[in-house]
């Protein structure tokens, strides 16, 4: 084992590609490389200083040997590398794994990267998606929209939550995106009525409640190298706590439709950080669908189960509100670059904690809660990030 470094691992580098509706003439590997290059520039480090690499699955271009392929492409020689495969929770899952690998003495400076192309008319699918492929698809239940519609319907039936309450979440996402020029819905706000008037894709989900798939990428660099942290032009941001839980894959196999694994993950992350959810200055909550934000607010204990709609009526969710929520617009406003979409919640949290969220900066931002959610409310990771170790 290598020598353990003295410094607590800090986030020192961010790289993010501006999301685009469709990519043209790009490769996923090329976009991964560009995301990493931007993160290294932000961190002020040379490529030779990166000795750890975490990547995601690349269903289309590079289904296997992803770390080796990415290392070769970038000319990296990591001493720790791996694939993190947690759907929308992958980015958050990478961050604590990077820290754990550093704390285990395996490496010092880890880059976590996710990126993908999104070409018009081209959808990459894994060749074998059983058992979902065998027991969901043949009934007409293909794709995430259907799974999340089933979960939203259950919430509405169980608790009496209303379409207007969910639409408010999409409205806030679009509203916050108006302060982020890179967001896919910049200059495209949407009122609650607009959301409700958008077509029902899979009832009860409207079009504006569903993320827009885009091309894009994001990379985050974590290091325990004191010289890098000291020389960094940005204030260091730390992962103060993490929690994770995985329960199922297919929505039909969820152990309970109400008890989402995020409840556990968030409580664990807050517990490690010794902080309360009310102390968070930013809620950077994974939002592939409006309903996921609603249930996450409940899972976080901000309100009782089923009561997010009532709770939201009494609060404000902009950067200047009492509960800043997804100030980058969330993925609903920013766009979802496949797995990198989840990373956008981390990038925004770090920007806010650095005090670099220009034009939408939260005053005195000290702590942020970040969540990741994958598959069908089944892959859950939560992080508490803060500007002090």
């Amino acid at each position, binding site marked *: 084992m290598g020598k353990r470094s003295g410094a607590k691992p800090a986030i020192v580098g961010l790289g993010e590609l501006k999301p685009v509706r469709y990519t043209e003439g790009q490769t996923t590997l090329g976009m991964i490389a560009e995301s990493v290059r931007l993160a290294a520039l932000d961190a002020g480090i040379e490529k030779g200083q990166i000795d750890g690499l975490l990547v995601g699955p690349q269903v289309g271009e590079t289904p296997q040997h992803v770390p080796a392929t990415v290392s070769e492409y970038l000319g990296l020689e990591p001493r720790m590398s791996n694939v993190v495969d947690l759907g929308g929770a992958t980015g958050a899952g990478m961050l604590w794994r990077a820290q754990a690998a550093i704390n285990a003495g395996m490496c010092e400076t880890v880059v976590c990267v996710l990126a993908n192309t999104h070409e018009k008319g081209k959808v990459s699918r894994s060749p074998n998606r*059983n*058992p979902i492929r065998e027991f969901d698809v*043949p009934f007409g239940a293909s794709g995430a929209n259907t799974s999340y519609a089933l979960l939203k319907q259950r919430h509405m039936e169980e608790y009496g939550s209303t379409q207007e309450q969910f639409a408010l979440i999409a409205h806030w996402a679009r509203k916050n995106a108006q302060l982020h020029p890179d967001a896919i819905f910049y200059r495209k706000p949407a009122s609650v009525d607009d959301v409700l008037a958008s077509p029902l894709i899979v009832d009860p989900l409207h079009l504006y409640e569903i993320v827009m798939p885009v091309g894009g990428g994001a990379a985050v660099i974590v290091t325990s190298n004191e010289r890098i942290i000291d020389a960094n032009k940005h204030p260091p941001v730390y992962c103060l706590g993490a929690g994770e839980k995985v329960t199922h894959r297919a929505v039909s196999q969820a152990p309970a439709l109400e008890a989402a694994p995020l409840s556990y993950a968030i409580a664990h992350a807050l517990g490690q950080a010794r902080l309360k959810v009310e102390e968070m200055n930013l809620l950077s909550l994974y939002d592939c669908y409006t309903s996921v934000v609603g249930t996450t607010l409940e899972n976080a204990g901000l309100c009782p189960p089923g009561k997010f709609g009532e709770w939201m009526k009494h609060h404000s969710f902009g950067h200047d509100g009492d509960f800043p929520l997804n100030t980058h617009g969330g993925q609903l406003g920013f766009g979802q670059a496949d797995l990198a979409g989840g990373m956008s919640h981390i990038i925004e949290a770090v920007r806010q904690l650095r005090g670099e969220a220009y034009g939408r900066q939260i005053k005195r931002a000290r702590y942020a809660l970040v969540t990741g959610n994958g598959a069908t409310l089944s892959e859950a990771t939560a992080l508490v990030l803060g500007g002090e170790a």
Partner: protein
Amino acid sequence: MEDKFIDLTVPGPTITPVSKPFWDALSQDEFVVQRCLDCTRWVFYPRNLCPHCWSNQLEWQQASGKARLKTWSIVHRPGHPAWQAVAPYVVAIVELEEGPSMMTHLLVDVKQKLDIGTPLELCLTKVNDRNMPFFRVVD
């Protein structure tokens, strides 16, 4: 109502050696589900071992075909384009009387009032020449 699926060229099940008895039984108009001989719980989808107690003593047994509605949604824009021909339609998660839950297609009018717990029954439906375990509301 069930006729509209006969010529629907939608993706069929990708059957594995473990799940084959389930689909074979359906083609004989029988609905069988695995049951654990150790903890006696029923198991769906088909597996090599019981996810509750890890026993590998699973036996195919006749299931009642009775179920209750857990949740549903009306699909206007299907994830697979071949389903568009019969859209909008209703998919549902149902809890079998024996305990396990499964995804299914609900043979109801999209305007029908449904509730959590609505009693359902199996209605084997030919899709592309294969018997599929769809469900309908008990009259």
